[in-house]
């Protein structure tokens, strides 16, 4: 049996992931990343209804900063053998963690990247999110509270936390955060520097 490009054929009880083509696996990876971030949104939404915005947002932050980010980094870096403590290593993780660059892409089969990484040198890098599905959702629903939670209360400390997790000397600061002036504007831009 050749590699399957999808699973439109008959059910096969013995089928496993290696039976699929790379293209099929890539589609499944993007889908997996989307539902990982998606379930966080659903969970926060239900908690907002039950306990109000503040309690829900605080709990969501606790989830990410207590264990979820650490689990995310550990599993991704182990799977990809990403080892190191400099900014290029940090960028390598940000390229393949499930809730970030891998889902901010265009449609298949091209998966056009919507996060750009620019390494000025080993101690200085810029990351730009050109389009952000989450921000576009907040803008469509005019949900400023959720946008501020995601961008300022989760992403901002999360990127700082992740940077320090790779090396306590790496500092992260936003160069640009939402709200955007126009739909043509980038979503956000971040600077990472290694402190002397």
């Amino acid at each position: 049996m050749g590699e399957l490009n999808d699973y439109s054929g008959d059910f096969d009880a013995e089928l496993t992931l290696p039976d699929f083509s790379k293209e099929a696996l890539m589609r499944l990876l993007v889908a997996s990343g989307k539902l990982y971030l998606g379930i966080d949104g659903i969970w926060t939404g239900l908690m907002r209804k039950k306990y109000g915005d503040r309690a829900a947002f605080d709990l969501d932050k606790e989830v990410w900063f207590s264990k979820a980010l650490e689990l995310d980094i550990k599993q991704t870096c182990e799977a990809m053998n990403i080892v190191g403590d400099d900014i290029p290593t940090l960028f390598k993780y940000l390229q393949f963690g499930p809730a970030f660059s891998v889902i901010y892409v265009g449609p298949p089969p091209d998966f056009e990247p919507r996060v750009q990484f620019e390494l000025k040198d080993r101690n200085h890098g810029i990351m730009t999110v050109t389009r952000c599905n989450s921000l576009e959702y907040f803008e469509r629903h005019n949900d400023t509270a959720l946008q501020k939670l995601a961008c300022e209360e989760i992403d901002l400390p999360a990127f700082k936390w992740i940077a320090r997790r790779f090396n306590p000397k790496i500092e992260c600061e936003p160069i640009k955060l939402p709200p955007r002036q126009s739909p043509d504007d980038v979503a956000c831009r971040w600077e990472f520097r290694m402190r002397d």
Partner: protein
Amino acid sequence: MGELPDYSGEYNPDIEFEDLSKEALIRLLKAYQKIFVGALGIWNTLNRQRMSVEEVWKLDGDVYELQLNTFELPQVTRALNIQGNDVATMLKYFQMCPDGARKGLYEFDCDLKDKNHAVLTFTKCPTLFYFERHGSPKDIECLCGPGSIEERAFDAICRYFNPGIKARALKRPPRSSDDDICCQWEFKLEK
């Protein structure tokens, strides 16, 4: 540049999934599974500080059912072009969903009697094993019993493929010993 077996080499600002070997993609997919299932466990653990065990599981069930219908079922079936409305098609989804049944995660033996009737015997369930070690009988009841998150999830998955498909538990936890199966479910299209 040939296919990369992993990402231990130099940083590449333009790297894409395409640049990785199939083996690396599969390892990454398995890592995503662990992260997804792990996140569910983290929420469950943290919520216990704020609400009763029953409320924790009820909320987990609400979140899980909503994410199934909003994300997981449409995303996975679209990604792999899984189309159809019989039990065999539904089993294809079971095999491929990120927190689904396959080697190393939730392992099962499948007895496909015909395309609209199957019996699944789950022999390995990391979630059950965790709550056997760390939880209470109430946890296992909320996880696996009537009206549990498991039953709600199976019902939602059946409905998505065909409202006529019914899930019926033939055996549920608690287990009598470590050698016992975890659970057994029948999926059947009812006329």
